[in-house]
């Protein structure tokens, strides 16, 4: 045998470089904790403080009051949660149909799903604003943030790819032979198989809409913000109090970090899976 798995064996240099990259990846978040745990004057001089100080909880509390973060966190949970539930539901249904059912026009319809992934959100923003605020009367209303996002072309694409490989077509045929309707098969065969993929799609969707800024910023004001709108609003003006601003970013990021620590493996798996099949 020739050399044993040469490209696979890392040297210490590999670890050193990767460690450096991880440090760069994490440092800005660490820095946000450093700044938000100091008072404004400590941040405003050189050399800057490089370790956290003792003001973290004071600043978090102050940011919480000023930025309306109690309401903002609740709003973000409602918005991201509702959108996630709906996207997973509509995508699993459509993904199943595109993956396993034969019907006239399915190829063209699926191509149109892929094509819509190219369409920028900004293309719809002006009519959406008019529709939501004037026709539906949802100015500054969470429904206006939620309803236009209830479906996702990426979600349909993702679930179709997942089910194409995860579900053997024989299962569908076997169900048909047993006299089960498509809905019955969907409920008792497809859904259990789709669950891991649906969970990953749910995670990615939740992260996306927890972090979304553009549309909520247009629709919601400071009285009724999501977390991203709240932190964007703390940061305006000439004199920026960075310890309060970054306390806001800590509040906004913390819930996602917890989710990531608990479910990082699944999130990474989902991204990598989507990549290979896409």
């Amino acid at each position: 045998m020739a050399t044993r798995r040469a490209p696979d064996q890392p040297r210490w240099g590999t670890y050193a470089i990767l460690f450096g990259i991880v440090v760069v990846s994490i440092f800005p978040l660490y820095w946000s904790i450093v700044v938000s745990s100091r008072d404004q004057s400590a941040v405003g001089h050189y050399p800057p403080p490089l370790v956290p100080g003792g003001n973290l909880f004071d600043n978090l509390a102050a940011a919480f009051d000023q930025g309306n973060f109690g309401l903002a966190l609740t709003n973000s949970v409602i918005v991201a949660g509702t959108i996630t539930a709906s996207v997973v539901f509509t995508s699993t249904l459509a993904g199943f149909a595109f993956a396993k059912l034969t019907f006239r026009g399915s190829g063209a319809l699926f191509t149109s799903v892929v094509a819509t992934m190219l369409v920028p959100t900004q293309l719809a923003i002006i009519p959406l604003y008019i529709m939501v605020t004037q026709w539906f009367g949802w100015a500054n209303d969470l429904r206006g943030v939620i309803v236009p996002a209830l479906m996702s072309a990426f979600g349909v694409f993702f679930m179709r790819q997942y089910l194409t490989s995860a579900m053997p077509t024989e299962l569908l045929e076997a169900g048909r032979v047993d006299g089960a309707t498509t809905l019955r098969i969907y409920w008792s065969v497809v859904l259990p198989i789709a669950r891991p993929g649906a969970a990953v799609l749910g995670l990615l969707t939740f992260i996306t809409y927890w972090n979304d800024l553009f549309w909520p910023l247009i629709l919601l004001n400071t009285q009724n913000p999501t977390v991203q709108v709240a932190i964007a609003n703390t940061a305006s003006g000439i004199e920026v109090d960075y310890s309060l601003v970054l306390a806001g970013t800590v509040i906004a990021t913390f819930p996602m970090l917890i989710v990531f620590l608990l479910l990082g493996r699944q999130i990474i798996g989902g991204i990598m899976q989507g990549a290979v099949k896409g």
Partner: protein
Amino acid sequence: MEKLRSRLYRFDLKGSPYLYVLPFFGLFAVFGLFPMAYTAFISTTAWSPRRAGSEDESVGLENYQNLFGDENFHNALINTFGIGLVSTVPQLLLALGIAHLLNYRLRGRLLLRMGVLVPYITSVAAVALIFNQIFARDFGLLNWFLAPFTENPIDWRAEKWASWLAVSAMVTWHWTGYNALIYLAAMQTIPYERYESASIDGASRWQQFRYITIPALRPTIIFTVVVSTIGALQLFAEPFLFDTTRNNNGGSDRQFQTVVLYLYQQFWTNGRYGYAAAIAWTLFGVTVVIALVNFLLARRIRSED
């Protein structure tokens, strides 16, 4: 009875699939397709919420004509392309390198992968605000770091190149790890035997990377180039938050005003719905053209091999 049953069966087989895709397409028709078409209509009017009745004021293609002669729009296009290049190219090259390193048989693999992905789960708003401090002229972290090398602190917002670099740094930090994982996924599908036989033939590591890894990754690279390009054309939150005055100028001289920030300014700050809609459709046109060019280039490169 028998007839009804067979009819139901036929419907279940041929008709019911449409019911499964209906929730998606129904919602998409109302909140995706209709607004797109409506944007096209608005772009031919002088609609402004500040003038009653202006929604019926048709101006034909005047908004588009004005747009072609609008210096601020040209400026926004140049900024968008410039920032796009400065953020996308290093980002994807870095991601490729990181993916290569992550592809070794590492200890603590999950932790390392999570480490590089942390920026992805951070919101764009949070990224921009944190980097605002790092790039602050007075008492910013980076200027402290650079102090020994520069005479005066760099005003990252004031100059074109400096502001492009700052905005690009935010984008690069946010997306590199994500792209690295996508490349890593593709690398893991390459059969190991190909490397083994290449190393028997005496190929160096670099040659293996160049002649085995890169060609196998080509479809994935094209995919990430297209996705990052589209993302770069839609850049908004970073430049929006980097200008703390919030007048949506993208700097005192519009030095980092992107197309979408300009669109937002026309729509939100100036209440020019018709003009903003024309910007939206023009941006979409540019996106389609660039996506097509990407595809054609990719195909050409493939056929040359």
